[in-house]
């Protein structure tokens, strides 16, 4: 499988990364190089093989459902690029 410029633009949009036309061309070549490299996986027979979900067998840890943390508004907001009081400020999203 190889990707065309339109696919590169679509994937960039899905990834929320803006690209210039020059970058689209460069990435198209690089992605096709990487995809050609991983193509060899197709020759592996995986009939009846379960996909890996956990590299070491482990049961999900359970904990009691109670509050253990919180009331740290200042810490949460400290690195905000734009804030007003305890709100993150973003460009207007509703008309």
């Amino acid at each position: 499988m190889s990707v065309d410029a339109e696919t590169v633009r679509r994937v960039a949009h899905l990834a929320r990364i803006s690209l210039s036309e020059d970058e689209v061309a460069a990435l198209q070549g690089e992605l096709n190089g990487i995809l050609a490299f991983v193509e060899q996986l197709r020759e592996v027979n995986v009939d009846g093989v379960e996909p890996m979900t956990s590299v070491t067998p482990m049961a999900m840890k359970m904990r009691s459902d109670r509050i253990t943390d919180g009331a740290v508004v200042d810490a949460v907001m400290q690195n905000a690029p734009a804030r007003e009081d305890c709100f993150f400020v973003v460009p207007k999203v509703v008309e």
Partner: protein
Amino acid sequence: MTDLTSLTLAQAREALRKREFSAVELAEAHLAAMERGRRLNAFVLETPDRARVMARASDARLAKGEGGPLEGLPLGIKDLFCTAGVRTTACAHMLDNFVPTYESTVTANLWRDGALLLGKTNNDEFAMGSSNETSFFGAALSPWRRRGDERPLVPGGSSGGSAAAVAARLCIGAAGTDTGGSIRQPAAFCGIVGIKPTYGRCSRWGTVAFASSLDQAGPLARTVRDCAMLLRSMAGSDAKDTTCADLPVPDYEKAVGASVRGKRIGIPKEYRVAGMAVEIEALWQRGAQWLQEAGAETVEISLPMTKYALPAYYIVAPAEASSNLARYDGVRYGLRVPGRDLLDMYEQTRAAGFGKEVRRRIMVGTYVLSAGYYDAYYLQAQKVRTLIKRDFERCFAAGIDAILTPTTPSAAFGVGEMGRADPVDMYLNDVFTVTVNMAGLPGISVPSGLDSQGLPLGLQLIGRPFDEETLFALGASIERAAGSFMPEKWW
């Protein structure tokens, strides 16, 4: 007095306990070395004030005989570990003003045991790279150079700054992370020891995430014993990381120097890759011989899925990275670039905040997870991963205690020499290390010799899950036979 930067962690620990010098003196010696070593670009942030405060506290505890296992020992910390109140960037423009309000579990464990922070070390941006050249702060340089050649070499990556700093004696030990070889490859390139423990041995909490099913923290240091000391402190269960194992942490140091008599060491024939340097092949045979001389038995084994590990990795790791890095949206922390609207702000922020390699991997990851391609790429890779792990399980079930391989297919290369034309060239560096992450196993790299140009080469030992002790025993055996290697100072 001896140069305090020439001591190993174990030597410094003994001397501090005997009060031969103070933790403040030890810290000052390393702060001075760090300053003189700035040409190496190994540190992206120096924290001398914090180091001095911590050293004074260590001296007070040592005076009362209350020192912890790492009391007063100055470390470099990869800039992927969040350190409370100390800028943590992942060496990315996206995070270049980020000051965490919390401490990663691994670093908290090190401070609990008395270690002190000298500074944050350089790495590839978001740990994506094998040469440290993708760092937003520029490449770290190896303290090693080819004989009669002044051109700078890479220290490897992604934990390149950590490896360079340890090899150049700017710090006694360092914390790194390893997703596909990021501790072991730089350790090999810089002539030091590095171990990636079993997946789940160290908590990932508070460490900037790259690929969550592969990422593990581990130490880099100049001896096997020093790595054992550091790992004992770094490892341990953590309620904040559900994938962190609830297992007691052994005293790894006890394994250093333990007999390796009767251990069965697998030599995987598939690692004899085409085009492998003759010197690497010779080193590998020498390593097997050293272990035989120490009483171990070497057995040829087969790991037939080896060649598929790297392509499978370059699907799984970017897929997980694209998901993990979705959080960088310019809203809650990190860089924000204004846009026409919310969507444009996201796209502009992420275009400016991520470097080329990171963008490339996010794109690959997004593509292989996108509708219509998920089964062909991601699902296939995860099935292949099951088979890769099965290869190892079969060998261990047949009585193999550990597996010996070269760490890298070549010695360190020059800055700017690799991967410019084709990113896959750079990826091939990880061909021997990446299988270990894919199978969640522990792997250690031990310096084992110099090539004809005077550059260090490493051997890797791969162990059973949670059997780091066997790796420390075997690693120490190779270390005894091979000796240690030190770069000539030019910086």
